[in-house]
């Protein structure tokens, strides 16, 4: 059986360092399995978040060799034999302990998004929507809230604009509501002001790390930016639209 070395961040925000662990690995193991082995052996107090261990809940986000990843979906064999693997907490958020960070700002950002409100029912048993109409919103609703895109986005990671910019994950959430064919709520002012969509300069780093393969930039942020531009920077278009559609265009 092979052994691999893991360098795992141990400590709090104030004080911590990379600790070396020598772990026995079997074929098929993922990085989270190695963390479990460390817990079951020398360090039962090694802190990590996880739930589903199948890429579905978005709990286990961290950085593996500096890349934002789900540790439950990252196979150890993806990294060349003989090299050690570093596992560190997401950098964009304050560390609580070891691999666990304080992600509460994401929940706060989510709460600020204007709530979904449907149009009146189309029939007694609900609404009529066609698959082609819901496809786009369904792409956005695949988001598992792993926060990896938030972690990689330089606006949050390097510039710490957590209060000014909701971040890519919440652009995705806003898009999920606004692309719902029966939604009636205008979220344009939110996007421009509270959501801070202007901070995004379309580097597409978020799309690259999304484990759900959501095309965050092209399918969520750019269309939302266009709506904001239409409203605020093209008065004639905005006026025409307002008259024609009676308000809803968020």
């Amino acid at each position, binding site marked *: 059986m092979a052994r691999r070395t893991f360098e795992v961040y141990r400590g709090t925000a104030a004080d911590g360092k990379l600790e070396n662990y020598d772990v026995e690995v079997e074929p098929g193991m993922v990085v989270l399995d190695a963390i479990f082995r460390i817990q079951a052996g020398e360090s039962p107090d090694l802190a990590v978040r996880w*739930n*589903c261990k199948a890429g579905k809940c*978005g709990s286990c986000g961290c950085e593996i060799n500096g890349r934002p990843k789900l540790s439950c979906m990252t196979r150890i064999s993806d990294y060349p034999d003989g090299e050690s693997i570093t596992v560190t907490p997401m950098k964009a958020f304050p560390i609580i*302990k070891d691999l666990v960070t304080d992600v509460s700002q994401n929940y706060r950002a989510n709460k600020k998004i204007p709530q979904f409100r449907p149009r009146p029912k189309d029939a007694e048993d609900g609404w009529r929507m066609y698959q082609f109409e819901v496809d786009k919103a369904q792409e956005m609703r695949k988001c598992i809230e792993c926060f990896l895109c938030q972690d990689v986005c330089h606006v949050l990671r390097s510039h710490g604009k957590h209060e000014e910019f909701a971040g890519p994950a919440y652009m995705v959430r806003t898009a999920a509501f606004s692309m719902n064919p029966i939604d009636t709520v205008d979220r344009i002012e939110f996007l421009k002001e509270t959501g801070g969509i202007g901070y995004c300069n379309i580097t597409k780093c978020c799309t690259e790390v999304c484990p759900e393969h959501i095309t965050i930039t092209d399918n969520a942020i750019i269309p939302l930016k266009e709506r904001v531009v239409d409203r605020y920077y093209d008065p004639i278009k905005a006026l025409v639209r307002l008259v024609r559609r009676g308000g809803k265009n968020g």
Partner: protein
Amino acid sequence: MEIRERYDHDVLVIGAGGAGLRAAIAAQEEGLSVGLVCKSLLGKAHTVMAEGGIAAALGVVRDEDNWRVHFRDTMRGGKGLNDYRMAQIHATEAPDRVREMEGWGALFDRTDDGRMNQRPFGGHTYARLAHVGDRTGLELIRTLQDHAVHEGADVYMECTIVKLFAVDGRVAGALGYWRPTGEFVLFRARSIVLATGGIGKAWKVTSNSWEYSGDGMAMAYDLGAELLGLEFVQFHPTGMVWPPSVRGTLVTEGVRGEGGILTNSEGERFMFRYVPEMFQGDYAETEDEADRWVGGDRVNNRRPPELLTRDVVAKAITAEVEAGRGSPHGGAFLDIAAKRSPEYIKKKLPSMYHQFKELAEVDITAQAMEVGPTTHYVMGGIKVHPETAETAVPGLYAAGEVAAGLHGGNRLGGNSLSDLVVFGKRAGEAAAKSATAAELAEISESDLETAITESLAPFQRQGGHNPFEVQEQLQRVMQDKVGIARTAEGLQEAIEDVRGLRGSLKACSVSGDRAYNPGWNTWLDLRSLLLVSEAVAISALGREETRGAHTRIDFPETDPEQQKNNTLVTEEDGRMVARKDPIPVVPEDLQTLIKEGV
């Protein structure tokens, strides 16, 4: 011992999966203040992992479907042990509970005429499961979570409740600790809803997460609630079997619902040989007939035997493996590529596609999967009133997987998600109603102090066992002796083993401090898990027959006499005992419905 934080609410909901969220929404609608507590971050409960769909007789795909057919399927699937009233309420109310979620933003997959699509699942007569590809649970939990939060629920996340308190016989509060800091927090409430989910972490091969340690059941039991039907633990027939690190991870029944077939090492589609007498005539008898059904002609053909109930399929796979016809890693082959195009598979089962590709290097659009049984769900749980979800403890309610009654001896796929929203709502409403008539009560400081001291005990010791070792030993005992096939001898041994492990738990020590310390957290969870494991084993020992998910090698037949009772575990004179609890008699009209069809 200090408690720095104390919160008061009208209704406290413990657990933020589908059941807890739906209960919170219902209680909020009554204008009450609601606190919602969960062990993990919000949105990460088991509900998020549900894949295949939510069962409701919407009658969209087949307009012959209605609550009567759904009721009948649920009762037959439960092998007669269900609480008929719960099954009736569930079948009747599920359609409205599913539809109302569209109004809160849920987007289910559509039919060609723009309505909610439904897919076939095991044990359901008609295509009945509303779904979103194979990530239905995610859609459900996000919808409910956004709705609850925007409507004003106070959410306390990464907060684990360790003990419930009653004052003058009525539930009065809950003591918890914050995972990030290890500091204690007290919640007082006029009524409490438990929605803490199941117990699957007690087995080695499982689709369940660390959260499933049976806390709700153990805490309610300590307060005098009764545990019903715990011998019925569902082993889902299709978990991954390879590689070892993902053994147990779920493969949705949706794969079979979409046409996937099960074969053995000889290439035989063996399920045709395993149709039980009760279901004779309901399933296709030839591969051609099954293929025509998968091809779309569902009126003139019967569904494939792969869609038999989970207990039947799990036992069939086990029997094939034991007969030497297993797959290389000890399972059966599940093949969807043989029946559907790669595009179809990627569209309908996207997360299965990724799961196998990334974790097992198997491309399910071209190759068969290897699958075998995995611990999945517990039908048993806290006994509740069928209409209000109240437990034996006044003011304490239970809904979702933590409660018992609806599913009897075996749960049909898709009937859990619908259970959550139907009974979550009812529990929330009933809790709200009784809260308005109750007062907040003072919880004795010395009781709180005792609970805190007990919780911190392992920090006082040094050089004891690592809690993770005890957990692993428990998982081995339950897997080997209280697993899919049981004997009196094994169960007796298991009871002794579990009691022994309770001793080991008392000798555990933990290192480090209280802040985010998985060793300590696991130690606390194990207190519940050991209690519930013992209850499962003594329940299983008492049922001397084979029925539904409970298989006794020493009693291989189903005994009609034993259909009259459920098993009830209670505390008597400080000891855990199992006794028989008569099953409510099904009214005549419903009996005819179950026997003769609609």
